[in-house]
């Protein structure tokens, strides 16, 4: 497959793994965070960590769109879904995220009209087909997904569609990364930067990481060779005493991002003063809401939502997993009470989540050698 097979070549993979080995300083422990859940998924799926020496540790970051949604937001979505005449639409994994009293899937089983969609445009189509119903789209995701929601809202406005609204839970990637860098219990040596978020925002927003925190960042693609090469590029920076933002994913990511996407996002969204992240708590200016010009399409204004903050279940350690403080298998309920079939925490829901990715692909990890 074009754009895929070229980046899964086992011979090249072995060569890059050899280069990584040669770049590792004996006795030094390297902690590299992959910010994006897509990378976490690829790392476990392709066994990339098995190709690394044991002193190169990959820490899984908060970049899984589903995993960072707090229980209170799920409850708000369910409350809207139960309103008379509402068709509630959302992406697939979001259906299974537990709220304080069940998931959207449970609410659907209880009679609410909740439908899975693949894009906000699908939700808009449902609104056109059902003019006598209120159609709400539960918008989640980072800057990768936000432009799609923004364009759909512009379309809804242009077509004077009045029975469509959005419950906006979009988040931005830079504030949680900064929060992690400020976290006293986490020492990181470098970052594998998010590839598809950067397609939209570009590489520039990550320049604060080397400038303010002295850590290298390499924006990376998602194929095995992309990730291996990015790790080699980070280690090369560390070996040379450099720290800067490099772009390994140049075939897709322009350094400036997609300016049209940034423009449409600026028109449709504005930053919330603060937004709650699962496991990370409230982070300033990290969530998006609809701008004043689109406020009439805001589902939270159109319907009453509880808006109550719900504490995570005590047994669940998603917060520590999302901060990279513990590994998925170190959680008390991993693989026992919490499985992809019956998740307690969000990290077990989406296959981008570190727990589900490890559960699905990484449970049979082999011993690795320390250099």
């Amino acid at each position: 497959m074009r754009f895929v097979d070229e980046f899964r070549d086992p011979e090249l993979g072995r060569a890059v793994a050899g280069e990584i080995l040669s770049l590792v300083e004996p006795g030094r422990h390297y902690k590299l965070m992959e910010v994006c859940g897509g990378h976490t998924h690829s790392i476990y799926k392709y066994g990339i960590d098995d190709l690394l020496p044991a002193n190169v540790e990959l820490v899984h970051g908060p970049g899984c769109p589903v995993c960072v949604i707090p229980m209170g937001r799920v409850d708000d979505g369910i409350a809207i879904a139960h309103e008379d005449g509402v068709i509630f639409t959302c992406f697939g994994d979001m259906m299974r995220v537990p709220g304080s009293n069940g998931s959207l899937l449970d609410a659907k089983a209880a009679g609410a009209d909740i439908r899975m969609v693949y894009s906000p445009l699908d939700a808009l189509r449902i609104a056109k087909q059902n003019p006598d119903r209120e159609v709400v789209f539960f918008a989640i995701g980072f800057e990768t997904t936000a432009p799609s929601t923004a364009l759909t809202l512009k379309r809804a406005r242009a077509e004077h569609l009045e029975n469509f609204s959005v419950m906006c839970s979009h988040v931005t990637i830079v504030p949680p990364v900064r929060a992690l860098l400020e976290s006293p219990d986490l020492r990181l040596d470098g970052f594998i930067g998010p590839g598809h978020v950067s397609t939209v925002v570009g590489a520039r927003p990550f320049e604060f990481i080397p400038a303010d925190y002295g850590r290298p960042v390499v924006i990376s693609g998602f194929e095995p060779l992309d990730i291996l090469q990015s790790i080699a590029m980070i280690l090369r920076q560390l070996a040379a005493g450099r720290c800067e933002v490099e772009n390994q994913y140049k075939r897709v990511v322009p350094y400036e991002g997609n300016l049209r996407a940034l423009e449409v996002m600026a028109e449709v969204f504005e930053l919330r003063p603060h937004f709650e992240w699962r496991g990370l708590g409230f982070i300033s200016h990290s969530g998006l809401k609809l701008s004043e010009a689109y406020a009439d399409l805001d589902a939270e204004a159109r319907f009453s939502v509880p808006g109550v903050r719900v504490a995570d279940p005590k047994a669940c350690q998603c917060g520590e997993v999302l901060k990279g403080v513990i590994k998925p298998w170190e959680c008390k309920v991993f693989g026992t009470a919490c499985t992809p079939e019956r998740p307690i925490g969000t990290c077990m829901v989406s296959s981008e989540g570190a727990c589900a990715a490890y559960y699905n692909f990484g449970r049979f990890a082999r011993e690795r050698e320390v250099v």
Partner: protein
Amino acid sequence: MSAAREDCGSHHCITCGDDGVPMTVMRVDLDRGLALCAGEDGAKASVETALVEPVAPGDTLLVHAGTALARLGPVA
């Protein structure tokens, strides 16, 4: 349900996962700002092209949540 959409099933939700999928433009609807695109597996979808216009049949786009985010060039 198309093959690509089956990927959105119980195991891996490509939309939730911030995944971009390469798709080839088959037909362009200039009036509506949409293009009919096909994935490598033949799955077809209507894709919003406002962020990467102009597009033409044969172009390869990186698509996420029904929106093309970038144009994919030839692999160097």
